[in-house]
């Protein structure tokens, strides 16, 4: 495997007294696309929140390019080149489409992604740029959320349930666009309930079950039985 861009070591995450992740060990290689699957409540979104700094972690549990980022605030993590497309899109309702995209560039990182590049990728957004983000369809909102993350020119991009609540045809469009997005040397973590979609775009897959890693395998060799076992804990 290439040098890891992101490593978690013994990651434990909590919501107050409730422990959501137990000793999670995860590596993302430079330029690698990783899929994370798991049932509802398995800890996928918690893992995303821990990595991005929205949850406070114990020291030494998350390393990004060799630097310990476990204790950094989310805005500091973002400046290092880690962006997220959050679950449920979570656009800013007070901001227009264009402003939502521009806020993504707030971290001030240089790179190939700017407004023009995002509009080239999703031309519909240029037509709608001055509309309120809430006036868009779900699929278009997802494009804004993806564009917003790209505007930060991240080295590692996290997709949290991008297909949730979208029509299958839209999901297909988005997954067809993904290789073009990630292709530019970016690493990615894709959190997904749709296992086939997750396997089709990733090189390796992790499965979470009740806050623990229950499977880690190459996406093209993993079997249906392996996944069922890891997913549901059925022996």
């Amino acid at each position, binding site marked *: 495997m290439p040098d890891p861009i992101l490593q978690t070591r013994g990651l434990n995450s909590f919501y107050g007294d409730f422990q959501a992740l137990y000793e999670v060990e995860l590596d993302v290689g430079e330029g690698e696309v990783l899929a994370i699957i798991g049932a509802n409540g398995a800890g996928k979104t918690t893992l995303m929140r821990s990595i*991005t*700094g*929205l949850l406070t972690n114990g020291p030494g549990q998350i390393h990004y390019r060799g630097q310990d980022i476990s204790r950094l*605030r*989310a*805005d500091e993590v*973002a*400046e290092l080149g880690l*962006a*997220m497309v*959050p679950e449920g899109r*979570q656009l*800013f*309702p*007070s*901001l227009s489409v264009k*402003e939502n995209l*521009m*806020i*993504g560039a*707030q*971290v*001030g990182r240089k790179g190939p992604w700017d407004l023009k590049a995002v509009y080239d990728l999703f031309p519909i957004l240029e037509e709608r740029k001055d509309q*309120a*983000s*809430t006036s868009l369809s779900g699929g278009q909102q997802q494009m804004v959320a993806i564009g*917003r993350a790209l505007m*930060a020119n991240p080295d590692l991009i996290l997709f949290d349930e991008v297909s949730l609540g979208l029509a299958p045809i839209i999901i297909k469009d988005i997954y067809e666009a993904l290789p073009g997005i990630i292709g530019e040397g970016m690493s990615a973590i894709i959190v997904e309930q749709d296992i086939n979609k997750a396997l089709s775009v990733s090189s390796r897959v992790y499965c979470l079950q009740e806050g623990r890693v229950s499977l880690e395998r190459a996406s093209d060799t993993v079997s249906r039985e392996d996944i069922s076992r890891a997913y549901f804990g059925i022996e």
Partner: protein
Amino acid sequence: MEWLNAIVQGTLLGGLYALFAAGLSLIFGVMRLVNIAHGDLIVLAAYLGLTVTTATGMHPMAALVIVVPTMALIGYALQRGLLNQTLGDDILPPLLVTFGLSVIIQNGLLEVYTADPQTLNAGALETASVAVGGVAIGILPLLTFAIAIAVIWGLQWTFYHTALGRAFRAVSDNQDIAQLMGLNRRHIFGLAMALALGVTAIAGILLGIRTSFDPSIGGGRLIFGFEAVIIGGLGNLWGTLVGGVILGVAQTIGAKIDPGWQLLAGHIAFLVILAVRPNGLFPRISG
């Protein structure tokens, strides 16, 4: 003609109330913080103006050059050092802390400046007026109203046409996601409070030129500011100006009927509007 006069004077007075309210509205809009010490911060700004004018001999309006940045700095420090720690899901801590701050500011001012009423001496500006169609319009109230419009226009422009304004709106919408975009909400909140207290400084100086002030009058200014914000509708700055004008006109008309009714008439107008339109006249349309 006397009634017209009352309406004109009330409208212009509304400009001052809108300035009281603008900072309050901005802070609530960005961070859902209700600042009970807002009135006392206005009075603090007036006293800072007094110190600057007596120490340097500057005109009070020129003293804005010093008082506005000073208040902005105080605002940033206050937010980063104290108020950020009170913000969270619970709305009570910021209320309690700013209430305590109000008491501290009042007593601090009492210690430093005593309870004697003071005014800012603005020379000819205080009494100059122009006659328009039989109504004498004071230059100071006119200037105050013009400044109020300029300030609200400026805030509105900042909110909708600058990166800072975009950051304010984003943090107000969703703090976590804004943080993911590289915006440190504590810093953004500090900037919002700095901006709000910069406006407060202008309000304080204009208040000090218009009337005498002493350390105890902050509470009354807070009420006027609150009423203007609520009448206009939360989160709408132009609505706040309209709220200030309605309050001002109600007060001057009340005073016209009977001098003792000035404050009461303002409060009654506020209560009536609250009863008829609980969200204010122009509530922000939320997405």
